[in-house]
């Protein structure tokens, strides 16, 4: 305890690949494996296509990352259903017309945010564990979808939305990818360079200490759930651009993959540690894996088993829990 110390230079030798680098390496390895197993898999067009498909998961997983970082068992299982609902609303309001895009997206995101608000309020004020709260919310949103559509979704994506997702802007890349990049940077900035982000990490790392440091814990959590649902809604709208027409379970299947993408990206389910860059790469890894499995002719049962085993391997590379004995 002598003189005040300044920061020691970072230890170069202690470097080991962070989750982002590791997940990125895995994505590249999967692409190479894909090319070896089914030639054509690493073609430029196919890579663009994989990135496009990854973008939907990637956008939905922005909110999932935020909620998981907030800790306390935080997880949002309703993202898939909310994405579906947003697409259904968007499709009906824009009804295939560019003029309708703004009100459609606004309404869809507003409704999504409202659902997130209810999740947040129930999790904070009623203390319902997030896992079961957002699980119950799936049923409610499904009910809302049925009530809103009468069981028959209608409308269609506006051409501008479709061309954002499927069209080409620069070097054959769709506008979607630039949008994803933008949203990703926004997410990273939000987490790393804003009071909200730092409060969020604090709440995730130690909720009691956060409260006793004057952090508005409940408000931070509620905002996290609102953001989660909003990004899910946005993901749903983008998916609508991809499929052009909606159906009643359009995005439901994103529920658990969005969690898996977050974890593969190195964010700890316990909260307080992580970030979006890893999640984005995690979304790419999962998408490449699905693409690869599709092109392998090993039958449905085999595909399912291999999917599980590869997921286990991915998870064991990162995001392991702490040892008891150090």
């Amino acid at each position, binding site marked *: 305890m002598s003189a005040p110390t300044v920061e020691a230079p970072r230890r170069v030798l202690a470097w080991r690949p962070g989750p982002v680098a590791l997940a990125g390496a895995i994505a590249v390895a999967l692409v190479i494996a894909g090319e070896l197993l089914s030639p054509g898999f690493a073609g430029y067009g196919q890579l663009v296509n994989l990135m496009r498909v990854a973008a939907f998961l990637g956008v939905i997983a922005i909110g999932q990352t935020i909620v998981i970082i907030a800790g306390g068992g935080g997880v949002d299982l309703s993202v898939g259903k909310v994405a579906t609902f947003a697409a259904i609303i968007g499709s009906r309001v824009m009804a295939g017309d560019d003029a309708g895009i703004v009100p459609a997206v606004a309404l869809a995101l507003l409704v999504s945010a409202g659902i997130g608000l209810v999740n947040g309020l129930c999790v904070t004020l009623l203390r*319902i564990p997030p896992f*079961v709260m957002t699980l*119950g919310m799936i049923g409610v949103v499904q009910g809302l979808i049925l009530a809103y559509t009468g069981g028959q979704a209608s409308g269609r994506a506006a051409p501008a939305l479709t061309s954002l997702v499927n069209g080409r802007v620069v070097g054959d890349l769709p506008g979607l990818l630039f949008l994803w990049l933008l949203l990703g940077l926004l997410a990273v900035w939000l987490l790393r360079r804003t009071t909200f982000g730092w409060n969020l990490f604090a709440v995730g790392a130690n909720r009691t200490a956060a409260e006793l440091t004057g952090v508005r814990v409940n408000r931070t959590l509620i905002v996290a759930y609102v953001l989660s649902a909003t990004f899910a809604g946005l993901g749903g709208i983008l998916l609508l651009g991809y499929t052009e027409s909606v159906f009643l379970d359009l995005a439901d299947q994103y529920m658990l993959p969005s969690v898996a993408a977050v974890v593969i990206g190195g964010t700890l389910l316990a909260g307080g540690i992580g970030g979006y860059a890893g999640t984005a790469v995690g979304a790419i890894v999962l998408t490449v894996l699905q693409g690869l499995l599709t092109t392998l002719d090993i039958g449905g*049962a*085999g595909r399912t088993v291999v999917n599980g085993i590869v997921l286990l391997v991915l998870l064991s590379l990162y995001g392991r829990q702490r040892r008891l004995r150090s």
Partner: protein
Amino acid sequence: MNVPARLRDLRWAGVQLSGVATVAMLVVAVAVNTALQPNFWGGYALTSNFATFVPLVAIAIGQTVVVLSGGLDLSLGAQVTLASVVAVQVVDGRLDRLPLAAAAALGVGMACGALNGLVVALLRLQPIVATFATSFVFSGLALVVLPTPGGSVPIEVTTAYRDSVLGVPVALLAIVGLALLWRVLRGHRVLRHVYAVGGDAEAAYASLVPVTRTRVWAYVLGGLFAALSALAVLANTGSGDPFVGNELTLASVAAVVLGGTALAGGRGGAGGSILGAMVLALVTNIVFFADVPTTYRQLVNGAVIILALALAGIPALQKRRPAA
């Protein structure tokens, strides 16, 4: 650990309160059902309702053990599927093969649990995602074992399952049996260790509890109850189906929470989960018999479940203060 005593006491009152909340919910659910469904206490309604409860009750007990240990098993439903298709392939409609089939199911369940235990306890993967991954392995294997629906359970089994003994439904006896099995386990060192590990793994480790082994046991016991659930599913359905159990997983977590067990681990018990499972099933019945229009039924169902979850959480509400 300088938690002000006021908060501590509330917390302990909370555990008892949540038991009361679960029982109260069940009583209300039964009362409402009685009012809406005129023959609720009739012979068929009674046996059929209990027959409906058993698979979820069994898997919810399994989930409880895992949750108590500080984990979560999202593959339990897939384990039910896998254990049931294996059992149905073994039994092949013959009563004399029943013991063998039951043993096979239990073996499969425990083997699945052992794999989860390996992955979560030894490899230290995070339970939610790790068991999500193993669920793919198990459902894929179920398709390998039974590529398309088929196979049959001896008619004696399905008949007995729907019967009653001295007016007591056999399915109710099965639930009582499951509760007793839980009770026996509670008296065993392994379950004490499960509570300890779920409550505070580091403290348990320092206190000579074999933490890793205990975690593996929790998943193995989870698998055991999943296998029992599989047997109930078979008695309920009479044949094999390679998708039959998958959806039970998430319902089992809801039942555990409704029963007042903390998802953080270490606190609660299967008694509550048993009641929670029945509440879940009864809510569906209520919404049906209340003649809620079809379009709104899922909405109402979801809302009622959230309400019930909120009620189950009332005790937690009281320790809102940050220092808790």
